[in-house]
Structure formats: C-alpha cells, structure tokens
C-alpha cells in the first residue's frame, strides 16, 4: 500500500539521514515505530549500522542536530527512539540472526575489534568473505568495551551488537596481541587482505615538570582499568586535564569511585570545549567543577607523589585559521591541591603491531590514505580512528563500511578503490513560513537518574522510553519528503484545489500542481481533495485503498464475516501502544466483524475512501479522528468533517442509512476509547435482527 521511506539514489536525503555518517534511514525507523512495526525499525537500523544498541545509548546523534523539526520546536529524540527499538525487539533480533557462509574463498584479517574493525568484519562477512578479528584483550569491543564508562554503555548492550556480528560467522582471536603473539607478516601470509582498525588506544602525555610523579594517570589507562575492575586508589581530590569527551568520562568515572572533589581543567572556554554539551551539563550536575581557560604548567609533588597542580591562564586556544595554537599568560597562575592528576589531552595509536614490518610510519603515525584507506603495503588497509583521528563511534562505523568497500574492490580486482568524498544532498532547512504553520509538540527528553543517585555506582543513568513515550515522540517526525506528489502532469487540470486546501501554503499551481517535497508536510489533504485523483502520497497512498481493502478481505471472502461488518478508519497517531497497530489476524476480523485501518491522520481519507468499504462488503464505516484540536495538521479536521458529510449525503442517495458512515473522535486514550466506539457504531445502527446476533 505504501511506498514509504525508500530512499532512491540521487534523491536528497532527509537532513537526519544525510547528517548520519552511515546514513541510517532515520525517517524510516521513526515511521516504522509510529506504525508499531518495531521489527521493521530494527531491520532499517541494522541495514546501516551493526551497532544500534551501542548507538542507541552513546551516539552523539548528529541526526538530531540537523532534524528539520528544530525549525518548528525542537528536534525529534531520535537516539532515544533507536534505543527504544533495540530494547523492544530482542527476541526478533535473536531470531533474525543468520550465519553467512563464506563463498568468496578469500580470507580477511582485521586487527582490532572496536566499532570500525567489527563493522569491516560484518560487511565483508555479508559479502561472503571469511573474516577473522584479532583482539589483544580478552573482551571484544575495543574502546566501547574498555573506555566508555558503563553508566553510559552497559556491557550487555555492546554484547547485543557483537553477538549479531559473531552469529554471521565472523571468527575472533581474543587475547592475541599482534606483534607479540603473532606477527603481522604471518597474518598477511595467511590472509588475502588485512585491515588495521587499531584505534587510538593510548593517551598522549604531557612533558611538563612533575609529570612522572606517582598519581599521574593517562586517561585511557585509567578508564580501561576501571572498566576491567581494577580502579586505581584515588584520594579525595582529583584533577582531570582536558576538555574533551574522554576527560568528561574520566571525571564522571572518578566521581563514581567516591572522589569527593573532581576538577576538570581545560584550555578552552565553556563554548569551545570539544566535549558534547550535554555531557558537560551532566558532569556539572554530578558536582564536577570545570576550570575553563587554564592550561597545565607543572605537577606539584611531595615525596614523588602528586600533591597538586600548577595551572597557567590560557588566553587563546586557536589561531585565526582555527588551528590549535594555545597562547598563555605565564604570569597568571593558580595552584590546586589534588591527590591525583588524570591526563586526557589526546590519544595516539599503539603501533607495536606494525613494528618490524614494511608498513610506513612517520612521526608516530601510520601512513595511510584517506581516499583509498590503503597503507604503504598492498593488501593492508586502515580504518577507524587510526586513519581518521579521534572521532565518535558512528564515525568509526562509517569508516569501517568504507574499508569493507575498499577491501572488497581490492580482492575482486587487485586495484585500489578511490572512495569519493561523500557529498550527500539533503533537503535543507524547513522554510520558516512552513515551520510556523506546523503544530508544536514538546520534545521528550531522555529521563536521567537524579545526580546524587547517579554517582553512587556505575549503573546506567538513562531510562529508555516506554512504548507510549516512543510512539508520541516518533509521531513528532515530520516525515520529510514523504508527502504529496503529482502522479502525472497529464492528470492535473490546474484547478487550484490543492493550493486552496493546503494548510501549509506549500502546494502551488503553475500550469500543473507542484508540492515541493522539501516543504510538503505530508498531511495528505490535497490528495484527498484532488478532483483529478492525480496526487499520490508516498506514505499511505489512499488512492489504493480499494486494492488494500481487497487484499485484506480477499482471504475472508470464503468465510462469513460477523455482521454488521464495520470498517474503522483510525488515526494511528492516537495510539499509546501497538495493541491496535499490529496487523489483525483473519480470525480476529471474522470474529469481531471489525476491520481497523490505521491511517497517519484520517484527514487524508478521500470521499472515495469513505464509500468504497461498502462496496467491499462493509455494513458500517466509522472514521475516528483525534481528540479535539489534537490534529497534527491545521484545517484537517474541518475538511474531513465536510468530506464525511458529502459522503454521507451520497450514501443516502444510494439508499444507505445516514448512520452507515459515522464520524467520531477519540476520547482519552485510543486503547480505552476505540473498542467502545466500534461497538457503539455496530450496535447503534444495527437493525433489530443484527443486534440479536451481536449478543
């Protein structure tokens, strides 16, 4: 029935998808959620990203930053919707796992099991390669398993994603340190290609006086030790040097280890800090004090142990070209008494695996080409942070996808593939004149534990959306570019009806009608009113209602459906659970005599949609609209009311009683209100003989 959310090559992507490094069909999964099809939503997520459970928790969600709803009120909580999907499809997810037999006859080794490495393994396994992942630790996941604190990403969530990948047949060699337990050369000999996805697993240290003192920890080592159950003993005052996400992770981790006073000192001003703003906010809530515009001068020690830190005023972090070039006022200093100092000022790769190999390394960096993802040696590729520098999990996943493409091309042709720089056309901003006419709906934020409770341990701090919350939030999606389009210019008489009914002023007529996809709000009113029946909707194209009804009812033809048989058009935006969103079984339709058709706003039903069910055997039709003034689309209610009246008049002319077609509104929740309305409509209008059978 609906040709929905299919993104065709060359189509501008909705901003959310364009902004996502792996171009997740964000609009598609929001839509699938609102239709109660959480399984389809998961399929869409997994199509683009093998780590939906991880990303549902820790993704920095560039999709939300670009969401076009921000022009109306605030972006859709897309990350939380993603999390809702993975939380509610566990059984389905396990069942859909499938082993992929390697059919290519070629083996690929991947060094490193972080998000980039496992994505390469996943993609190449899908393509039929035999993939083996080498991991130095006993646990898979790289930084996800060792550096991201558990309160943000519990291990079980990471495990869900990894289990999917392993179920495909990806092999792993854990606790295997390449360069120590096995040489890279040996791996190269045994495999047709090698991918280095070794990440940036070491913290950069600062050569300042006192940095050798006992109690100075590199940030990654600190986080790694805590994650693996070996937290170092800490005093009551700890200072974190750095203003990035790792610094915030280290600070919040220290707080959870019982440190009374945790400080962060960074060169940047609050606005310049590279950490995500919400992370900074949450850290502040947890009592972490941030000292902005202070740089490290010296670690003060007493008896070889850290006693404090001397900081100097940072006057500028970046030069006029935006390059990192900090300047200090050496005269302005401050001293902070602390027991430990954690350095999180940057990361570098541990390149011990390429030592004594031919691979080119310059100034401590692996030489690799960002366009071909190749290294200096044929058949050896690199991806993830070792290639791109520090980044987010989703960027590492995107890099893994690209590496898999490069490796596949190399193994098929022996050539390097030059991957084009991605230039994804997007829909752009929603024009203000359209946005101002859209109904405002409050964004639902993730619910966080009280800060005092949070710092007690490493329990996850964020609660997932419940079903009602997820459905409400999913319907905030503007469903960009799934609206109306003229099916053929030939059909259009240029009558202007579309332009006259469009509540957003989007439809225009210049010889023929035009509904620019980037502006259309998908209310469907123009399609319902078009006298040429020439406007199609990408989502829920009611032009095919008859066919849809026919398909639903075809198996029922042979059996007798309970009479009076009611077709109920219900606004799916009113549901708070998927009780009524799930497809009905034939038995249910037969037994109840009620066929419900869920429509994303019943305002898009045409007069024909209201009449045709009678042709298909319905005895009654009820249209259940949303609560008073609850409609997403201005004017929809009035037009629908008039259309129902028109159809009622027509049905009366045909000889049907006026009550055959009824218009109702949801009262309270859909789940509570609808069954009563259905029964009411069945009873109220049923002739005496039929009423008997209903008992």
């Amino acid at each position, binding site marked *: 029935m609906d040709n929905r959310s299919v993104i065709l090559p060359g189509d501008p992507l909705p901003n959310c998808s364009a902004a996502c490094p792996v171009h997740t069909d964000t609009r598609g999964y929001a839509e699938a959620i609102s239709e109660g099809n959480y399984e389809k939503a998961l399929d869409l997520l997994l199509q683009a990203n093998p780590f939906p459970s991880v990303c549902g928790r820790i993704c920095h969600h560039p999709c939300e930053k670009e969401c076009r709803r921000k022009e109306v009120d605030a972006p859709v909580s897309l990350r939380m919707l993603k999390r809702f999907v993975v939380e509610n499809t566990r059984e389905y997810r396990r069942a859909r796992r499938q082993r992929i037999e390697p059919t290519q006859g070629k083996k690929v080794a991947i060094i490193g099991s972080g998000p980039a490495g496992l994505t390469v393994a996943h993609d190449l396994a899908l393509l039929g390669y035999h993939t083996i992942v080498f991991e130095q630790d006993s646990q898979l996941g790289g930084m996800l398993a060792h550096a991201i604190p558990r309160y943000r990403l519990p291990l079980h969530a990471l495990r869900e994603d990894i289990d999917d990948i392993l179920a495909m047949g990806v092999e792993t060699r854990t606790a295997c340190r390449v360069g120590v337990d096995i040489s890279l050369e040996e791996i190269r000999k045994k495999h047709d290609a090698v991918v280095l996805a070794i990440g940036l697993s070491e913290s950069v240290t600062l050569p300042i006086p006192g940095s050798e003192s006992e109690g100075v920890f590199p940030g990654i080592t600190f986080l790694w030790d805590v994650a693996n159950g070996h937290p170092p003993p800490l005093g009551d005052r700890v200072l974190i040097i750095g203003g990035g996400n790792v610094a915030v992770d280290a600070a919040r981790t220290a707080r959870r280890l019982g440190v009374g006073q945790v400080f962060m000192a960074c060169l940047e001003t609050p606005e310049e800090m590279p950490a995500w703003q919400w992370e900074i906010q949450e850290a502040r809530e947890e009592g972490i004090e941030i000292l902005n515009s202070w740089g490290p001068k010296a670690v003060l020690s007493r008896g070889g142990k850290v006693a404090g830190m001397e900081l100097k005023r940072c006057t500028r972090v970046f030069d006029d070209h935006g390059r990192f070039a900090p300047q200090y006022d050496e005269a302005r200093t401050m001293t902070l008494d602390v027991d430990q100092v954690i350095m999180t000022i940057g990361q570098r790769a541990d390149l011990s695996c390429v030592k004594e190999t031919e691979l080119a390394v310059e100034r401590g960096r692996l030489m690799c080409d960002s366009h071909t993802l190749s290294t200096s040696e044929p058949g050896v590729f690199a991806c993830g942070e070792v290639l791109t520098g520090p980044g987010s999990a989703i960027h590492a996943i995107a890099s893994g996808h690209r590496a898999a493409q490069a490796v596949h091309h190399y193994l098929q042709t022996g050539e390097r593939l030059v991957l084009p720089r991605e230039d994804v056309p997007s829909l752009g901003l929603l024009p203000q004149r359209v946005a101002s006419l859209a109904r405002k709906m409050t964004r639902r934020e993730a619910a966080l534990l009280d800060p005092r409770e949070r710092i007690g341990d490493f329990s996850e701090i964020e609660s997932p959306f419940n079903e009602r919350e997820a459905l409400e939030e999913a319907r905030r999606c503007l469903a960009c570019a799934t609206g109306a389009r003229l099916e053929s210019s030939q*059909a259009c008489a*240029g009558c202007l009806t579309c332009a006259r009914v469009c509540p957003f002023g989007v439809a225009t007529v210049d010889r023929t009608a035009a509904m620019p996809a980037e502006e259309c709000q998908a209310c469907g009113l123009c399609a319902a009113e078009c*006298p*040429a029946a020439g406007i199609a909707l990408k989502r829920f194209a009611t032009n095919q209602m008859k066919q849809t009804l026919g398909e639903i009812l075809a198996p029922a033809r042979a059996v007798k459906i309970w009479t009076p048989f009611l077709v109920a058009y219900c606004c799916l935006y009113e549901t708070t659970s998927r009780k009524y969103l799930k497809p009905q079984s034939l038995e249910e339709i037969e037994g109840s005599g009620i066929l419900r058709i869920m429509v994303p706003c019943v305002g898009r039903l*045409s007069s*024909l949609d209201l*009449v045709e069910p009678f042709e298909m055997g319905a005895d009654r039709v009820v249209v259940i609209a949303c609560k008073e003034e609850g409609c997403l689309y201005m004017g929809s209610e009035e037009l629908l009311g008039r259309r129902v009246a028109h159809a009622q008049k*027509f049905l009366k002319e*045909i000889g*049907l009683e006026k009550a055959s077609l009824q218009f109702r509104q949801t009262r309270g929740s859909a789940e509570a209100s609808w069954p009563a309305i259905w029964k009411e409509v069945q009873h109220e209008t049923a002739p005496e003989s039929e009423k008997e059978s209903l008992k």
Partner: protein
Amino acid sequence: MIVADQKPFHEIKGFVEAHQNILVAGCGTCVTVCLSGGAAEARLLASGLRIAFQRENQNKTIEEDTVLRQCDEEFVLPLLQRVKEENIDAVITLACGVGVNFLADRLGHIPVFPGVNTTFYGAVMEPGLWAEMCSGCGQCITHLTGGICPIARCSKRLFNGPCGGSERGRCEVDPQNTPCVWQLILDRMKQLGRLHDLQNFIPAKDWRPALDGGVRHTVRERIYRLDYKNP
C-alpha cells in the same frame, strides 16, 4: 470554463438499470475544475453504482475511466476502444453536454447518458463558488458595457439599463446573491470615464449567431483540413 453539476444519483442509476456493462467516463478539464466530473467523481459515482446494484442483487459490471478532454477525437479514442473491447453496453459521461454529444456521435448503438447537468460558462468567484459570466450568444457586446455582460448576468437580458426590479444595486430575482448587472455596468463605465457612452442606444440584438440561428460551427483555416494530412 464550462460549469456543470452532477445529476441526482437515482436519475443516473435509472438510466442504466437495463444495462449490464457500464462505463463511467470522467472528463479531465472543465468538469474536473468545478469538481463535478473528474476522475475522483467518476470513481466515486462508479463505486456508488456498484454498491447500489449490489444491494439489489443486480450483477453488473461498472468500470470507470477519465480522459483529458471528451471533446477531442485523440483523447476519446481510448474510451471508444475500451467500449468496444470490453463489450460496454452503456456509457455515463460526466463531461459537459459537449462530451455527451461527442461520444454519442461515435458510439453507434451504444447509448451515452449524461451524468451532469451542464449549467453555464462561469468563473470561480471564491474557492467553491462559481458564477455565470457568459452565455455564448455568438456576438459579444461587452465592448459597449464596460466588459460586463448584460445577457449572461441580467435575469431579463436587458440591453439598455436596469428594470424596475433593481433595488439598491441588487437584482430582485435573488437580491442576496445577485447584484444588478446594470448597476455593475454603470459603476464600471464611471470608472472608465465612459459613462456618457451609455446614452447611446444598444439596438436589438441579432440572435442568429446564438442558438436561434441553428447549429454553430467554427473553422480555423490555419489548421483545418491540412492537405498533406489528406493526400
């Protein structure tokens, strides 16, 4: 454009009671614009007929089709083809009277029934409201009346000023909805600075170019009967 209203359902149904394979033919131009006979209306009417006959246990086939214009050979050919191939034994057309005639001329023994009452040549006064503006009289005199037609828009078709039923600028036939056209003409001529022209008597009209003169034809020599097309 031509404005039409759909006929009452029972009247249309009555036309085809005796027929079996019925085609409802919509027209994609004027009647689409005035929401009386386009594809959407054709589908709705066809559905309504199917429901009505089903309820009487009459087993009829009712199809629908809409073409861009039912007044052009090229556009109606697919309809004619369909009638022939699908053994249609009656056509209900939702086109204006032109379409009814045009199809009837081409459908031999197959009856063609009008699904609409063709009412007037009109314009959209506001969305959803059409008003008559021209009667197709064949000899336009609006150059004398400031562009406002006393034939189409005067209840009595008066040529030389209002009748006694013009009151406060409204027509006595329907004061609420109809202005007196002579008031409109007067105001317009004043605006144009030509009020004095109304002192000239408009002589009795020659009605022969209107329907009274018999069936009317128009020829455009520049495309009419091209020789190279008819060797």
